[in-house]
């Protein structure tokens, strides 16, 4: 009897936790199908008309494309920089290696607001006008530490002999890196890329501070919100959420699943 009670209690606790995390999202998604002008109860519908409105709104679709571009390019750059720094720190004896590693990780612990402000001031000083490029730079700054940490953790001594073997067979440093090391670390690199992608995809503060005419989707949603609540914001929010879920599922199926198999 007692065991059953404990099970019920555990299940209840889990339900409350998951509810706490996902109820807001569930409400958001639910009222994106609202057949009316306000995303508040009672729920009438379902209707897809707000999704239609989103797709008809060129400023939203433009922002969506902008977000995709920024996320793709900044994640690729963050992965490349993260991989190179991890390679350097893992394979060479560098002066003050521990300190250098801490320096690379440091942006992790600084709030996005501070990073955004710092970049804003710097770009102003050097006369760089705000654009999608500056947003991308900001996202590279926040995602490089993440990529570095993921990739660096997968460097091990067991790969050293494999790289030695490649060198022994005549490969140059660059060939070793591109033909041997990077492919061996592909799972970690892919994980870094997709996580960076999701972080860049829904990042707001830096994108808000560093963009001007062309904006990313979170910034566009924010300006939409200023004109009041509207099921259209729910619809676009749901699209963003769905996309993140999609990426996570892809990540789980490709990278983590494969990792477990090996």
């Amino acid at each position, binding site marked *: 009897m007692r065991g059953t009670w404990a099970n019920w209690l555990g299940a209840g606790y889990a339900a409350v936790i998951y509810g706490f995390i996902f109820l807001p999202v569930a409400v958001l998604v639910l009222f994106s199908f609202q057949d009316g002008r306000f995303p508040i109860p009672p729920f009438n519908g379902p209707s897809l008309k707000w999704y239609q409105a989103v797709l008809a709104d060129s400023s939203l679709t433009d922002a969506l494309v902008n977000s995709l571009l920024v996320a793709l390019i900044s994640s690729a750059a963050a992965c490349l920089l993260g991989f190179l720094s991890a390679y350097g720190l893992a394979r060479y004896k560098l002066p003050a290696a521990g300190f250098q590693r801490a320096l690379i990780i440091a942006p992790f612990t600084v709030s996005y607001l501070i990073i955004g402000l710092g970049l804003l001031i710097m770009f102003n000083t050097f006369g760089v006008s705000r654009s999608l490029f500056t947003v991308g730079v900001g996202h590279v700054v926040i995602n490089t530490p993440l990529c570095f940490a993921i990739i660096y953790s997968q460097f091990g001594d*067991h790969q050293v*002999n*494999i790289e*030695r*073997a*490649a*060198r*022994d*067979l*005549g*490969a140059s440093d660059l*060939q070793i890196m591109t033909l*041997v090391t990077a*492919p*061996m670390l*592909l799972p970690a690199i892919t994980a870094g890329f997709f996580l960076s992608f999701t972080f860049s995809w829904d990042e707001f503060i830096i994108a808000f501070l560093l963009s001007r005419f062309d904006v990313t989707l979170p910034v566009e949603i924010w300006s939409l919100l200023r004109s009041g609540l509207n099921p259209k914001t729910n619809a676009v929010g749901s699209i963003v959420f769905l996309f993140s879920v999609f990426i996570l599922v892809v990540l789980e199926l490709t990278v983590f699943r494969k990792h477990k198999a*090996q």
Partner: protein
Amino acid sequence: MTAEVTIDRITHRFGGFVALNDVNLTIGAGEFAVLLGPSGCGKTTLLSMIGGFLNPSEGRILIGGNDVTHLPPSARPTTTMFQDYALFPHMSLLDNVGFGLRMRGMSRPQRNARAEGLLELVGLPDAGSRKPHELSGGQRQRVALARALAVEPDVLLLDEPLGALDLKLRRQMQDELKAIQRRVGTTFIHVTHDQEEAMAIADVIIVMNGGEVQHAGVPEEIYLRPNNHFTAAFMGEANFIRGDVLQVSSKSVDIQTALGVHRFAVSVLNGAAIGTGQTVEICFRPEHVRLGANAGKSCDFGQVVVTDVAFFGTHHRCLLQLEATGDQKITAHLPQTLDLKDQSKLRLLVKPSDAIVLPLNGSSK
């Protein structure tokens, strides 16, 4: 595709530790040489130096007469087969074996053809499209061998390649390694701490200890005529009886031991310079021990008591206690048909020509 390797006065220090001390060695072209010794003896350090992964503190390495001491691994006519095989996990076997050829700019069809040939040579035909993680340890080993041989090195370096295999597979791979070496003719330098493996595959064995070469020679010589205590003790079991030289003539040497005076032909000295009064050791292998009542022409070391017997299939391994000295144990391999009913008249007998006499604490290089 083979070359002589010369180690010329190589010394190497790791901080204050002397890993190799003035090593001189020549390994002939096409030989299967085995560097043998306990862990920490410097054998792997020496192999890394021949391969170019480590620069010696002093001395030179010559391959085929060319000084390669300061060349990187890729510029040397050597390839290394690593202990953990170090296969490229993301590549097919064909790509693994063809990697060195790819680095040399060979086209894909050509290198695939070569790789297939090599996989066949090592006994893995039609496995080219598989990945390393699908293979067993012994199969990975073969792929590593094929990969190292693909670039036709003059010298192949093998770093304890059989260490991770079980006994039966190890014996089988020893035979195959040797057969492949005969076929390709490449100089093989193989590192191991297993003296049976060394004797099974080597043309020459180089016994190392404490960063120095103790004895280099063919397996029979290393085993039957070791020239120092370490080599004698490391190459299987050996018994040592201490004594002093009474007199040396051009033909024979008389040695005074606690077990009587024994005369040997000077050939047992193995060329070592020994003078009257010098302390020496008489050394003999367990299989050279005979128990009996009549000495005949054998050296008689007095009465013994058998304290322990174990059956090893091919022989009985016995521990004997000498009555005269008491505390010293002698190991003997006695026949399968051993009968120990009457122990009262057993005497420890060794043919003088089976024994060797070693200077004490001296490596008579």
